[in-house]
Each structure stands twice: as structure tokens, then as C-alpha cells.
């Protein structure tokens, strides 16, 4: 009897905790957005600035995700399969973007590419716009979403070992063939899982992009920056509508994670 009471008690604490912190707030935003029907939300979403902001977010994500996928796989292979000087350093460095404040990331890039920065004068002499333009926003997004693929692939690579790769190699397969036929198929779920996490992080990036973009309306404003801009302009409906779209994407990400996670554990 006492066991049952304490079990139900713990369950109640856990569920209440999640309801108060996570589910409650999100539910209220959904309710507030559609309080007056779909039309106001739709109008808020289809203004040219907001459409532009979503486009920009998609462009940045479309560049950053493939770059980080390739980088993540290469890094994971280097960490697990190779021995080289500085390996410990790489292993420590790769988690840094997770522990670092996005504002610090943005500031670092600002100092590197800004007018008085290390590359700033060279870039402006050659007429290349990096800061307050797309390139710096892409670089900032790549920076903050760097570790996700590698972090997923490393444990899987460790677990499968290199017996099959060695066998393929002994049978005369080249390095590339071994990678495409043996390694990649066995890490594919880990890669996909990492790609989903990377995509979510890229779509949602705010702090680093806020610093390097200069927030020029209609030019360097991503979806998340647009939420802030609408909020500052007292356009609550606009801010909520964009938030709802981003939240729906987040929910899709959660569903994808739930579907893929068991497969990853089996393979």
C-alpha cells in the first residue's frame, strides 16, 4: 500500500513538473493564437517581412545542416578510428559549442569579421560582406550546431567496432568503398538522428545570429529574430503566429526523434 502511494506520488510530481514548465505555457500560446480563429494568424504569417524571415531561416539551415553532417561524420571517424596528436583536444573542443553562450559565439565572430576585426579590413577591401549579411549568419549557425552529428555517431561507431571494416579492407575494398558499403549503412540511424537535432538547432538559433546579423528588417532577419521584432513592436498576434509555426516544427522534430530512437538502439 505504501509502495503504491509513493509511486503515485512520484508520478504526480513528475507530471505536474512537466505540465507547469513545458506543456502549460505552450498550450496557452496555441489557445491565444487561435482565439479569434485562423484568419488573424494567417494574416500575420503572410506579411512580406515574415515570409522573408522564414525564407532566410530555411536558406541558412539548408547550408548549415549538410556542412555539419559531413563535418560530424569526418570528426566522429577521426575520434574513434584514428590516432593523431591533438585528438584529446578535438574531443574536448567538439562539445564546446554546447556549453558556450550563443552571445559569446556571436561576439567572437563579430570581432573576427567586423570592421576592426582580424579579417574585417581585408574583407571590406575586397568588397566581401560577411558581417550583417548572410555569410556571418551561416557561420554562426554552423558554429552553434556543430557537435550534434558527431555526438550521435561517435558512440555508434564505438559499439559496432571495426571488424567488418577490417574484413572489407582485407578483401581488397578501397577506403571509399568500405565507407559507403560498410560504415555508412551501419551508422545511418545515428546520422539521421544527428541531422534532425542539427536541423532543430539551426531553425531555432537566436543569440549568435542576433549579434552578427545586425537585424536589418526584410534583409537579415530570421524567423526567430522576427518573433522578437514583432514582440518589440507590440504585435502580439504576429509574434504568436510565428512562434506557433516554429513550435509545430519542434513537435515534428520530437515525433521524428521518438520514431528513430528505438531503431538506433537496435542497430
Amino acid at each position: 500500500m505504501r509502495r503504491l502511494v509513493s509511486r503515485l506520488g512520484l508520478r504526480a510530481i513528475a507530471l505536474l513538473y512537466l505540465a507547469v514548465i513545458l506543456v502549460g505555457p505552450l498550450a496557452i500560446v496555441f489557445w491565444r493564437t487561435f482565439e479569434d480563429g485562423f484568419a488573424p494568424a494567417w494574416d500575420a504569417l503572410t506579411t512580406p517581412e515574415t515570409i522573408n524571415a522564414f525564407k532566410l531561416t530555411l536558406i541558412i539551415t539548408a547550408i548549415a545542416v549538410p556542412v555539419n553532417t559531413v563535418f560530424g561524420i569526418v570528426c566522429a571517424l577521426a575520434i574513434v578510428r584514428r590516432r593523431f596528436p591533438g585528438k584529446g583536444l578535438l574531443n574536448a573542443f567538439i562539445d564546446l559549442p554546447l556549453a558556450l553562450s550563443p552571445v559569446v559565439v556571436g561576439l567572437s565572430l563579430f570581432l573576427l569579421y567586423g570592421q576592426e576585426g582580424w579579417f574585417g579590413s581585408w574583407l571590406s577591401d575586397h568588397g566581401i560582406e560577411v558581417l550583417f549579411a548572410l555569410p556571418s549568419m551561416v557561420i554562426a549557425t554552423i558554429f552553434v550546431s556543430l557537435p550534434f552529428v558527431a555526438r550521435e555517431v561517435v558512440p555508434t561507431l564505438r559499439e559496432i567496432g571495426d571488424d567488418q571494416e577490417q574484413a572489407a579492407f582485407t578483401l581488397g575494398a578501397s577506403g571509399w568503398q568500405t565507407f559507403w558499403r560498410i560504415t555508412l549503412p551501419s551508422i545511418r540511424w545515428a546520422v539521421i538522428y544527428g541531422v534532425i537535432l542539427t536541423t532543430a538547432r539551426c531553425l531555432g538559433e537566436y543569440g549568435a545570429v542576433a549579434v552578427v546579423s545586425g537585424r536589418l528588417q526584410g534583409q537579415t532577419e530570421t524567423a526567430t529574430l522576427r518573433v522578437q521584432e514583432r514582440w518589440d513592436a507590440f504585435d502580439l498576434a504576429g509574434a504568436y503566429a510565428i512562434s506557433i509555426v516554429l513550435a509545430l516544427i519542434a513537435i515534428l522534430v520530437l515525433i521524428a526523434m521518438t520514431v528513430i530512437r528505438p531503431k538506433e538502439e537496435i542497430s
Partner: protein
Amino acid sequence: MVMVGLPLAALMWEATSEGTQSFRDAVSSPEAVAALKLTLGASFAVSILNAVLGTITAWVLVRDDFRGKTVVNAIIDLPFALPTIVAGLTLLALYGPTSPVGIDVAFSRTAIVLALMFVTLPFVVRTVQPVLQELDPELEEAAHSLGASRARTFVKVILPNILPGILSGVALAFAKAVGEFGSLVIITGNIPFETEVSSVHIYGRIESGDSAGAAAVAVVLLGISFLTLLSIGVIRHFATRHDR
């Protein structure tokens, strides 16, 4: 390496370019000190809350069974998937001036703790959960049948096993909390000396053109991130020493 190292080198350079004195002045300005104290205090409080509530949640997800558990398990990762600015906005919708339940904590320090709890929620749950899953319930049954009370079983049998998981989850949550920005800008109002945390302080310095001052405080945050990563490494080292 170039991607991560070079910008950080530029940051260190800027922070110290005008000599150690100006670095010290920027870091020890009353506003910077107040922001840093608030950041560390709030992050510490949130870490403790996470350790307790995260462990309970992980326990319920592993040992308890009820309808809809899969959904609850999936929801845990929501803060990873939801943009931080949206997180701040949603919290303000429920706990702000227009709150339907009559709770208004907007622009207060409670709001900071609330926002940080939101963004750090998954860390402890996700580091403790796999350890609990591996832990054999028979160990607890054995302790129980030998006459140990439930509290004693938890302290002597379960806690030593999950402690490394709790600690590394707490360390990750702490690092995330110290650097958090997006979820705080809307909900805290960023009042200096009152609700302005370090990341927001840095952003303010950049906007007012004081990049050396911003860089100095940023280097302090960078140092905290490094130390936290280092301590996670140490925890992992000790946690796995029996396996090797």
C-alpha cells in the same frame, strides 16, 4: 578547429588588447559584477532543482508504467527542439501580465529561474534515465529483503549508481543556464542590477559599441564553460573507471 578556435582567439585578443587593467575594469564594473552574480546564483538554483526534479522524472519514466508514457517521454526533449525565443514567449503567455491563471512573474528574478528551468529540463532526465534502465531492480529487492528501509535502499544502493549521471546532467544544465540568452530577453525585461544576466549584459555592451567590455565579460563566461566541460570529463573518468 579553425571554425571554433579562431573566433575564440579573436575574442581573447579583443578582451586583453587594451591591457589587463581595462580588462579588470570591465569585468569588475558594478553592472557586470551584479549580472555575473545573478547568472551564477540563478544557474546554481536551477541546477539543484534539476537534480531533484530531473531524477524523479527519470525514475517515473523508467520504473513506473501508465498510459501515455511514450508521449511524456517524447515531451522531455521539447526544450531541445523549441527555439529559445519561443520558449520565453510561451512562458510569458502563461506566467506574464496576461496570465489566465493569475500568476504574473514577468520582469522578476523568478522569471529567470522559470525560463532556465524550461531550457535545462532535459539534461538530468536524459543522463539519469539510461543508468536507471541498466540498473537491475533485483539489487533493490535484495536490499529490501535483507531488511533495509526504502529510504536506506535509495541512499545506499540506487544513489551511488546514478550519482555520476546526476552530476554530469547537472553540469550540462549549469553550463546551458550560465550562457542562456534567447529565452531570457523577453521575459526578464533586462533591468540592470535587477534582472540582467551576463549574456544579456554582453549583448547590451555590443549594442552600445563597447566591444572590449563585452569581450572581457565574454571571456569570463568562456572560462566557466571550459571549467564545466572539464568537470564533466572528470566525472565521466571516475564513473567509467570500473569498466576499464
